[in-house]
């Protein structure tokens, strides 16, 4: 007697998926071309065929338990070869979008982040916060664009100690807490995962070993990416992503050094660095290199995205993230340039915009596509633990491979 699970088709869930990128999911007629063409789909219960029918039947329970949605890097080959135009790759992205929306609360943020119509609210929050700060500091100086000692210094109107650091510190705590809750939700649902039983060489491994493998092979080297193909446009996506990733790492290091020297300088005086930093300062050089890296990476990704949009469409999630990073990068660079050119008005305004966009990038991170930073890593580690990722194996091992 086979165990039988009761299914609860949910029409609302299907419509949600359609709204966040899975518009054509109903066209699927289960030929499984997608699962065959996918270079990284596991042999056992391959994706995305099964996700397509689950989505068609509105089986939310099945889908939220599904680790496979995180295995997909959306190379788009399934979408390209689908004979019915059901866009399986888009559906996988839509499923991830739904996950960003629903893995952790507050629910209203998830909802706001799912559609362009809520964008004004999302902008308004940081805009108001930083405007209040500006109004206060501006009234202290008696001008919105103060230049004491003839220097433009953003710290005058957005003092780190009293505005930037507490605001972003709180936001970061909020994001960390949200990820904690999101990961707990994931862990709960993963308990009921299908397992791949491999007889011969595979032993279930610890989650820490798996996590390390993911960080090594997927994050640091992006090695797994190459499995999805090395032709254009995969190449562009790979280059763009890795550039963007390391640029952010660079900027993270810069921010870390700045924060560390600033706060520790309050205790140990000599650590404190003067601001703004001189252009020859190695930290400043690293920051500027990071900014250039961002621009180049963004150009790659935007070009690919525009092509992708022609081919299979992109969702609000895709454009939100790309646009936010563009604004962060450009306002960052421009505010520096205006500062160096001594255009006080423009440089303050642009810096204000920079702060808004940085806030939007960081504070809403768990509900944006950038949430994959955490969720995908966790899911991939879990999948590896289960043996659900085709790991590199020797020929000898291959001969002993049996999948049940």
């Amino acid at each position, binding site marked *: 007697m*086979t*165990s*039988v*699970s*009761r*299914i*609860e*088709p949910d*029409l609302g869930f*299907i*419509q949600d998926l*359609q709204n966040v990128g899975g518009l054509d999911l*109903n*066209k699927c*007629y*289960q030929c499984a071309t997608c699962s065959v063409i996918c270079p990284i789909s596991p042999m056992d*219960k391959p994706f995305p065929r*099964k996700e397509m*029918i*689950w989505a*068609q*039947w*509105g*089986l939310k329970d099945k889908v939220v338990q599904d680790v496979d949605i995180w295995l997909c890097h959306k190379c788009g080959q399934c979408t390209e070869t689908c004979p019915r135009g059901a866009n399986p790759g888009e559906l996988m992205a839509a499923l991830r979008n739904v996950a960003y929306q629903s893995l952790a609360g507050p629910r209203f943020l998830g909802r706001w982040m799912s559609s362009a119509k809520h964008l004004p609210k999302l902008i308004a929050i940081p805009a108001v916060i930083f405007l209040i700060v500006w109004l206060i500091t501006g009234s202290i100086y008696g001008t919105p664009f103060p230049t004491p000692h003839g220097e433009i210094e953003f710290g005058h109107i957005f003092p780190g100690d009293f505005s930037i650091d507490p605001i972003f510190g709180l936001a970061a705590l909020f994001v960390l807490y949200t990820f904690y809750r999101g990961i707990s939700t994931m862990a709960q649902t993963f308990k009921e995962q299908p397992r791949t039983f491999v007889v011969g060489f595979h032993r279930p491994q610890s989650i820490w070993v798996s996590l390390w493998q993911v960080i090594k092979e997927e994050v640091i080297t992006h090695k797994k990416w190459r499995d999805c193909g090395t032709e254009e446009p995969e190449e562009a996506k790979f280059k763009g992503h890795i550039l963007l990733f390391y640029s952010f790492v660079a900027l993270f290091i810069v921010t870390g050094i700045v924060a560390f020297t600033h706060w520790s300088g309050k205790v140990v005086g000599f650590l404190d660095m003067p601001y703004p930093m001189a252009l020859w300062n190695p930290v400043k050089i690293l920051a500027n290199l990071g900014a250039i890296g961002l621009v180049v990476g963004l150009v790659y990704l935007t070009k690919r995205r525009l092509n992708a949009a022609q081919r299979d469409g992109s969702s609000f999630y895709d454009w939100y993230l790309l646009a936010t990073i563009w604004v962060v990068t450009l306002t960052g660079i421009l505010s520096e340039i205006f500062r160096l050119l001594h255009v006080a008005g423009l440089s303050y305004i642009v810096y204000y915009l920079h702060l808004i966009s940085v806030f939007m990038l960081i504070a809403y991170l768990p509900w944006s596509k950038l949430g994959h930073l955490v969720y995908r890593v966790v899911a991939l580690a879990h999948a590896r633990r289960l043996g659900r990722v085709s790991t590199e194996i020797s020929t000898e091992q291959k001969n002993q491979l049996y999948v049940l």
Partner: protein
Amino acid sequence: MAEKIGVYFDKSSLEPYLDLESITERVKNKWESACPVVRVVDQLASEEGHRTVRQDIDAGEIDAVSVCGTSPRKDQEFFDFGSNICVDRVNLRELGVWAYKNPDGSLPQEGEQPQDLQSIAQDYINMSVTKLQRTEAPEAEAMETEKTVLVLGGGWGGLTAALSTAGAGYSVVLVEKEKELGGHAAQMYKTFPQKPAYTQLQDVGLQEKVDAVQKHDKITVYTQSTLESLDGQPGQYTATIQTGSEQEQESVGSVVVATGWEEQDTSFLKPMGYGQYKNVVTMWQLEKMAQQGGIVRPSDGAKPRRVAFVLGFSHMMEEFARQEEEEKARKEEERRKQQEEGEETAIEEPFEKTESYRHLPYTTELTTMTALKQANYIRESDDSAVSYIIYEHMTAAGLNEHYYKAAQDDPGIMLSKGMVTSVDAGRQDNVILKVEDNLLGEPVELEADLLVLPTGLVPTTALDPVVQLAYRQGLAFPELELFDGFADSNYICFPYETRRTGIYTAGCVHQPMGLAKTEQDAQGAALKAIQCLESVNRGMSVHPRSGDLTYPKFNFVRCTQCRRCTIECPFGALEEDADGTPKPNIARCRRCGTCMGCCPERVIYFDNYSVGQIGSMISSIQVPEEMEEGGPRILILACENDAYPALDMAAQQGKKWSPYVRIIPVRCLGSVNTIWIADAMSKGNDGCLLLGCKYGNDYQCHFMKGSELCEGRMQNIGETLDKLGIETERVRQEEVAIDDYELIPQIIDNFVDEIFNLGPNPFKGF
């Protein structure tokens, strides 16, 4: 009877392989008086060739023409010299020159004129001359006909047929058993799409049709009426129509049967919980509910929000299949016992109802479309309600695919292939389905507020004789035991025709179908009914030998009243008087010659086709005295509908076969009289091969039973041959289809090899 035959050779298709000079010389010598004109024409199939023959006819030198050249299936336009001049086409090109290979299998050298090929030509020419000597120019038996079509059934099909017929200028008598016209269509809420883009539900639009019929001055409508009897023959039927206690008679020429369907007995749905759970309904119930104002659950009258449709559950039908097998075996046993006790089988078979579980799978295409349609009813009435469709087969054929796709695109219609293995009760009278082998990847349980099961359509012809024929073979259409009561004779070639000439079927008596298909079907049937009227009035055969003016004639002096012809006629054309003397009804006849083939006294003949004629052709084959020297001779009787064209095509494709066979086309293997076989064997021929159509389940015989009847006769003659010491293997029947031209040469050569192994006919030389 031709006395002066002109023999013409087409040089362009026969040279250089045939030595036309010596052949003409031999023809002149052999048929000195019979063939006053023997000519070789450069290209016979041309204006020029036609003129040459015409001049000889006009000069009074000849009264019949033997055309030696291309296949009779080619160049027909050049060889029509009016109805008085009989023309025989001698297929020397395809069956002679093109199909020829040397006895050892090699091909003739350049410039060679092989002796065996000359013999083939000589035999075919001799056959043609003897054939023409025994051919009469047919005279049409024209008859007075009533140009009125009787339409049975006032549903979608009947109304369409009536309008089409009346629209073409013919009168119509429409008989409907209910009070109102419309039939099942009147009880439908909507129909699946019938026009581009084939994605939207559509109103039935019945009222316009009914109004048009009622307004039409050429259509007489009888409601609350039934057909009591149909007497006579096409063109001259008398229909007796019963209305209440009154009877009226109408003269009609042909009939369209569009009496539709009845709902299948719901006991076949019992394994799916029908009758057991309140909220399990059939599609037809749901349709009526929708039409009468809304779909609700029978248990509490609430609007269902989750409706499951299950299409196909053949694994649950196995028990019915077993029961039916048992019943069949029991009946067979009974029949066998009766025969042992010496009871004669009745000629007039009693009508037997043929309702079966199989009517459900037969309706699959229609129930597929109905499920999609009704799933949309649910969606239409409530945006948040959903329909589940669990199908065994999704049969959305042709343009209906668009509607299937449209349903797939609706997120509220969820589809999966699957096998429903159990139906149970849930809370609040809900229904819980267990679905295995589905696309979701594992067995699942699905809860629904309402379960809808398909409705099987049983044709009215399975339940009732319907046509009420006053024929000696019975009231109803003869049951072929192939279609479970659907009135269908030859689906591929003749979709509207039944085994009763002049009576055509349309709509669901024909096969389960929706309104759009019924509309087309009814128009087709109406055209056939008109074709019938316009053929029988000219004394022509309606089909499949459309335009044939000959008909079976009887030499009653020799008739022994054995009744074989009246039993075997596939079309019930022959009535009989009290003594058993056959009474032909020419307009019912399809000119297949089955009667001629079965008659032991050989009293039946056609003007241009008779037992004597073919017999004399067989006699004119020159059989070499020694098989070792001249090879064996093998007679092939080939059905002219499929086998003969297949031979033609084989030759056209460059296939070759043994030079020892002689081929004679016949109207149907059913017309093969066993005397021909006996003649051929007694004249020293070494074998006889009959090429006819497939019979049985996938029968392709144009006359339904011809090849099957022939097979039976060949078994009988086999016994006779055995007694004479002739091996029964020398006579064989093979089934071939028109597209078997690749196989036919092999069939022939294999048979010739077997004859070589058997050695010469022991009768040779006697």
